[in-house]
């Protein structure tokens, strides 16, 4: 799936970006299938806003976002659900787990929301890899941020996708755990021949990026 941004600028940031240029805002830019893109930006320049625009959680922007040439604004709610189930997976900065479901149920829900991409056993394998096996049967509300972040990563990886959108996905993890998560994400994207868009505050060398953009 190709993502195309045509002169997109969020309404709240419009004045700010009238003064200066950006790699993304007010620009015409294409993200091609399978590309690995890093977006680096300081706080307050709209990283999360961009992620939410791409995921159609907000529409207070000017310009146009096209998925495979089709306008995102015009996407129906049913088609949007299909996109989210099949094409675009996401790791939110604020994690967004169901507090009253157990860790396993949170992941399982995403696995069975569409025709399962993986057997349920894969959840255990991934949890093992990220070191969260011991909390799988614990309510998500009782997990630490570090644990919740790893659960959110696993949840994003049990579904089919051609784009993985990650909004500061390692903010609560130490270097050792970041390494494990990076390895898992790398493998899963390879498997699907999928690309990703990763936003962060600083430069990093977690992945080999095709492009690094600044907001």
């Amino acid at each position, binding site marked *: 799936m190709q993502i195309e941004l045509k002169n997109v600028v969020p309404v709240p940031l419009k004045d700010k970006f009238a003064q200066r240029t950006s790699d993304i805002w007010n620009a015409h830019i294409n993200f091609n299938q399978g590309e690995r893109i890093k977006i680096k930006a300081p706080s307050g320049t709209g990283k999360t806003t961009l992620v939410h625009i791409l995921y159609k959680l907000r529409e207070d922007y000017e310009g146009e976002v096209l998925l495979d040439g089709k306008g995102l604004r015009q996407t129906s709610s*049913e088609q949007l*659900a299909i996109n*989210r189930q099949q094409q675009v997976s996401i790791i939110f900065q604020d994690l967004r787990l169901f507090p009253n*479901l157990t860790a396993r149920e949170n992941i*399982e*829900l995403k696995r069975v929301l569409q025709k399962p991409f993986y057997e349920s056993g894969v959840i255990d394998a991934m949890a093992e890899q990220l070191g969260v096996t011991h909390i799988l049967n614990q309510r998500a509300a009782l997990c630490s941020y570090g644990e919740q972040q790893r659960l959110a990563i696993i949840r994003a990886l049990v579904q089919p996708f051609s784009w993985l959108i990650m909004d500061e996905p390692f903010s609560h993890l130490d270097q050792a755990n970041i390494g494990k998560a990076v390895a898992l994400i790398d493998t899963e994207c390879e498997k699907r021949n999928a690309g990703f868009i990763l936003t962060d505050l600083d430069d990093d060398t977690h992945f080999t990026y095709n492009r690094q953009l600044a907001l």
Partner: protein
Amino acid sequence: MLNILLKKLIKAGAGRIRFVMAVVGLSVSLLLIFSSVQLEADYDDMLNSKNNKDSVANFLVINKEVTGGQASTTLTDAEIADLKSQPFVEQTGTLTPGRFKVSAQGASNSIPFSTDFFFESVADDFIDVQSTNWKWDANSTYIPMIVPNMFLTMYNFGFAPSQGLPQLSAELVKSLPVQISITSAGETANYFGKVVGFSDRISSVLVPQPFMTWANAKFGTNQNAKPSRLIIKTKDPGDPVLTAYLKSHGLTTDADKTRFSKLRKTVDVVVGVSWVTGAVMLLFALLIFTLFIQLTIASAKDEISLLITLGAAPKQLHRFLMGQFFPSNIIIIGVTLALVAGLQFLLQQVLHNQNIYLSPLISMFTILAGIIMLLVLWVVNFTTIKKYVAGQR
């Protein structure tokens, strides 16, 4: 698996009291509606089914009320035409009076009797006696007659015991020849007559129409005599409109046969009241049910919103929520229909003892009403769910 997880997230537990209220309200209102449909169907069935043709009078003999003061009790052509045009009249027949004097006497000496009487005739369609002997032409050796059943009863249980005469069975009376004398203009002609049947419907001595036509032409003294009695066939002798019509036109009939009029009024009132009450209650019950759905969705607002964010399709949520709310409606309809079926069976048992025959099963219309209610409930459920799920996005 998805449903188990959704069930954990969207608990229908909120507003349980509201749910119980909605269920009770829905059940009572549906019970009232189904009962009124069933009662209406039963009444219709009672009037139209073959079994009840005899138990419910469909034929009424109508004449003017004799008050003592009026000039004549004959019916004018205009009066007959007006009656014919009434919606409750299916068919009318005239009771043709004989315009000559008739007397009868026993043809054998075993049962000696002699009496003056009269003949009337009516089209065969209106006669409730089936007999192969009910025909007459110029070559017939006897005149067939149908007499009221009441005559035989009066004779057997009133007259015979008091006079020391033997009681007669219907078969015996049918086998006895009677000598009939017709007197006209001073001349007397003798014939044999035979009773071929007993009627419960028409209180008159009936002879076949062809005989009456022939005899009136031969012996009749007043060629333009107007009929004074009519017989009408009606779908519903209990129709209050009919009773009112007769009353306003000074006409009368066997009160016994119009007794259904009172029953009819009662049925109408009961059906009407239960119909309206049921409909009003249904509205409120639906409102409560809608509120219950709304409350459940509102209390799971965050969960539904996150589910949609994660990619749950609105259709998936609709299907799940329908699965939560709609089955209770199916059960309610099933239970209320079963209750009405039970009541119908009881009613059938009770009325059977009174010789009123009803179907022991509930009518097709009641089942149809059930299906319609199911559709209505489905639409209400679905639109409410759709509306409020869309509102959570």
